[in-house]
């Protein structure tokens, strides 16, 4: 969706404007959503960043609107169509992601809305813009995820978060299970985890989390000037090196997104000429 905005600008305003918009987007994402591309995972955003971005999608739509507002004539009409389609896509996606990632059983109404939103989202992208490629994941969202949700009641429950947590545990504790080789170390780790899995209820009680339930422990802001609110907190001090590193990562993200967007639009325009 972020790249789609850059593609729209390239298509309507040219490559120079597209490159500037990609840099502008990276700044909006940092300032408004407080998300930062990670140096691994292809230099993209990761984890809950998709929710943070979705929650503030209005800022992205506004940035795109500002970029396209100078156009006149037929270009302005087409840009308006793209802008309307872009906003509609964000609205559909924001409804989809809340059901998609939630580890609870969805109601029949939510499942019906999910099916309708998924269809509108993918079909809307293809109909309005024409160039987005339906990847296998997008196809699964459109064609198979609604059926899965109807049959099993949830998609988030079947997520891979449990699996990802084991990576963290292994990384943190691997040094406690030494072996002559990495394989031997992994075998020792496996054995220890198998024994922990068979632990008695007394051991489980001892290891149980002691943190208070979130509702009881939460200290929420009570007034607009409350210092618990992020807007009222002083910014975290960053050393120059860290700030430069974050800027480099944002620039790298913008460069990559722009490069892929240029390629996509060039391919699309080539097809239109054929």
């Amino acid at each position, binding site marked *: 969706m972020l790249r789609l905005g850059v593609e729209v600008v390239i298509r309507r305003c040219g490559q120079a404007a597209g490159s500037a918009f990609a840099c502008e987007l990276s700044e909006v994402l940092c300032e408004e959503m407080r998300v930062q591309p990670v140096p691994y995972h292809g230099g993209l955003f990761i984890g809950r960043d998709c929710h943070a971005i979705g929650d503030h999608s209005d800022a992205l739509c506004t940035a795109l609107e500002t970029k396209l507002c100078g156009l006149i004539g037929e270009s302005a009409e087409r840009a308006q169509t793209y802008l309307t389609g872009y906003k509609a896509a964000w609205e559909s996606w924001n409804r989809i992601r809340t059901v998609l990632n939630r*580890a609870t059983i969805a109601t029949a109404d939510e499942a019906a809305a999910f099916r309708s939103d998924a*269809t509108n989202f*993918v*079909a809307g992208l*293809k109909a309005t813009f024409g160039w987005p*490629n*339906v*990847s*296998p*994941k*997008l*196809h*699964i969202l*459109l*064609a*198979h995820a609604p059926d899965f949700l109807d049959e099993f009641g949830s998609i988030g*429950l*079947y*997520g*891979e*978060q*449990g*699996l*990802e*947590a*084991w*990576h*963290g*545990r*292994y*990384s943190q504790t*691997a040094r406690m299970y030494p072996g002559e080789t*990495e*394989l031997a*170390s*992994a075998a020792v*780790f*496996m054995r220890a*985890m*198998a024994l922990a*899995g068979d632990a008695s209820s007394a051991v*489980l009680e001892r290891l149980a989390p002691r943190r208070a339930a979130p509702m009881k422990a939460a200290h929420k802001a009570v007034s607009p000037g409350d210092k618990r609110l992020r807007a009222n907190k002083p910014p975290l001090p960053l050393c120059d090196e860290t700030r430069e590193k974050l800027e480099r990562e944002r620039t790298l993200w913008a460069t990559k997104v722009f490069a892929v967007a240029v390629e996509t639009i060039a391919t699309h325009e080539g097809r239109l000429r054929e």
Partner: protein
Amino acid sequence: MTIGLDKGGDPGSEKIVLSIVNQKRPNNPRNTILAAVCPCNKDEYPEMSAMMAIHSPRIDELLERGLDVRGERRPVRLLLSGDFESQTTVVGHKGPNATMPCLQCKSTKAPSIAHATLDAKYGTLQDVSGPWLHREADQYAQFLDDCSNCGQDDHLSVT
């Protein structure tokens, strides 16, 4: 029951995790079972198959017999977990770049001259109107056993 496979962590390793979904907090590590860990750089089907050699017969048995819960026999259904690439590895599919990239249906990736017959028969991923022709339930099992008896419609995406 879900079976998930993923490569990650530092040091990099492949992990296979089993979990039982119909319980409270199914993704809590305490409620999941670590089935295998293997240091590796790439997750490919032969390595995955070797890691699962001990567990596969037990899973098959569980699926055939079901599970006894407080004296009552319950059926077990196996679902794949993990990212898309790992799911394709588990079933022996060639992955998201295959001609038929979807695990569940036979839609082709994009219209092409080389696969025009398949495009016409099963549709492509780019066609968002459907309908989508689902794969047969035993397609992967057939291919893992014997690749010689299968036609062009089936073998394109399966090792």
